[in-house]
C-alpha cells in the first residue's frame, strides 16, 4: 500500500478527523429528534467528504476516527459497544466514494448528492443492523429509528455535503499545492 497515501491524503484525513471529533465533543454534531435513538447525527459527514474528495482509504480512516471518538464520548450504552460504534463507520466513506465515482461522469451535483445520501444511509443501516445483532433493540424498534431519524439525517447530510464540497471546489481552485495534485 506504499505510495497510496500522499501528503495530501494524510493531512486531509487528519483534518477531517479533527472536525468529526469536534462535532462529537461539542454536541453540535447531534440534532435532537424525538426517537429511540435520541439524536440525528451529522458527525459522519467528514467521512463522506473525505471519501468524495480523496478516495476510499481517506474515507475509511476518517470513518474510524469518527467511530473511535463516538465510542469514547458515548453517553448511550449502544455506542459503548465497539462493534456498534467503530466497525460500521468504516464503510461510510467507502460507499460514498464508490457511488461518487460511479455517477461522476453524468453530473457532478447528482454524484455528490447521491454519495452523501447513500453514505448517510450506510451509517444508519449498518449501525442499526449491528444494534439488532448485538441485542440492544428489536427489529421493530430499529425500523422505526431508521425511518424517523434515518431519513431526515440523510436529507440533512446531502445538503451539508453538497454545500461544503461545492464551495470548496470554488475556493480551492488555485490554492492547492502543485506537487500533490493527483
Amino acid at each position, binding site marked *: *500500500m*506504499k*505510495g*497510496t*497515501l*500522499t*501528503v*495530501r491524503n*494524510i*493531512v486531509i*484525513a*487528519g*483534518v477531517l*478527523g*479533527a*472536525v*468529526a*471529533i*469536534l*462535532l462529537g*465533543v*461539542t454536541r*453540535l454534531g447531534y*440534532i*435532537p*429528534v*424525538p426517537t*429511540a435513538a*435520541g439524536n440525528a447525527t*451529522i458527525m459522519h459527514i467528514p467521512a463522506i*467528504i473525505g471519501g468524495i474528495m480523496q478516495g476510499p482509504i481517506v474515507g475509511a*480512516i476518517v470513518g474510524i*476516527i469518527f467511530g473511535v471518538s463516538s465510542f*469514547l464520548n*458515548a*453517553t*448511550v*450504552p*449502544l455506542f*459503548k*459497544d*465497539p*462493534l456498534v460504534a467503530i466497525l460500521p463507520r468504516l464503510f461510510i466513506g467507502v460507499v460514498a466514494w464508490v457511488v461518487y465515482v460511479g455517477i461522476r461522469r453524468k453530473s457532478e451535483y447528482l454524484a455528490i448528492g447521491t454519495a452523501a445520501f447513500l453514505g448517510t444511509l450506510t451509517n444508519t443501516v449498518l449501525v442499526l443492523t449491528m444494534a439488532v445483532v448485538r*441485542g*440492544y*433493540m*428489536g427489529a*421493530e*424498534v430499529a425500523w422505526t429509528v431508521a425511518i424517523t431519524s434515518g431519513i*431526515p439525517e440523510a436529507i*440533512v447530510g446531502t445538503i*451539508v455535503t453538497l*454545500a*461544503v464540497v461545492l*464551495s*470548496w471546489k470554488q*475556493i480551492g481552485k488555485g490554492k*492547492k*499545492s502543485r506537487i*500533490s495534485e493527483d
Partner: protein
Amino acid sequence: MASEFELSRNITIGQYVPTGSFIHRLDPRIKLLVFTILVLAIALNTSYVGNALGLLLSIYLFWASKIPVSYGLSGIKPAIPFIIILAVLQLIFQGNVFSGGTVFFEYGFILITSESIRLVIVSAVRFVEIILLSSVLTLSTSTTELTHAIQSLLSPLKKIKFPVHELSLIITIAIRFVPTFAIEMEKMMKAQASRGADFGSGEWWRIIQRTKDMLPIIIPLFNIALSRAEDLILAMESRCYTPGNERSAYSVYKALERDYLVLIIGLLLSLLLLFYPFPF
C-alpha cells in the same frame, strides 16, 4: 448565554491527570493493548457474575491510578436518562428475541422473561464498566503516549505494507487540530450571534429548523478546516516530507518485567470473562 459558546472548555481530549501512579508509569503500548482486550471481553460477556467482576476491576483501576472515581462517574451522569429509556424499551420489546428462561409477565406483545431482564441489567452495568475503563486509560495516558502506542502496536502490519506511520500521523494531526477548530468555531458562533443568529434554541421537535440554524456554522467550519489543510500540505511538502520513508523516534519505549506481568494478568482476566461459564 455566553457560556454556550465556550466550546474549548468542554473538550476533554488529552485530559490527563498526572498522579505518577503505577498505572501511569506502565508502558503505554501494553496499557492500550490490555485495555482494548478488556473492553472487548466486557462487551461480549453476558453473565451477572462476569459483569460484577468487570465493575470491581474498573473501580480497582481508578483506585490504583490514584484518580478520583468522580472523574469517571461524571461521564456516566449525562447518560442516566438514556440508560433508563433503553432499559424500558428492551424490557418491553425484547422478550420475543431473547425468549429463554422463565416467563414473568405476558400481555399482548409485551413479554418479560428472566433472559430479557438479564439483558437489561447486563447492558446497563456493561456501559458503566466501559465508561470507567476508557476514562482510566485516557486520564492516565497522555495523547503523545497514546499515539506512540498505536503506532508501535500496529507496526507488525508494516510487513504487509500497511501505512502504520502515516496512520499515526493522521491521528496526531486530528488530535492536534481539535482545539484549534474549537476556537475558530467559537469565533464564528459569536460573530453569527452578534448578527442576531439563533442556533439550537428552537423547539426540540422542529428538526429542520434546528438543522438549518447549524448550517452557517458547519459550512464555514469545513472551509476553514480544508484551507488549514492546504497550508499544512504546503508546509510539509516544502520540508520534503515523504510518506512511507523509514523514521526513527525521539522516545523509545522499553517494556519492563512489571509490564509483561500486567499484560499476562490482563490476558488471563479477558480469557476468563470471555470463556468461563459463569453460573449466573
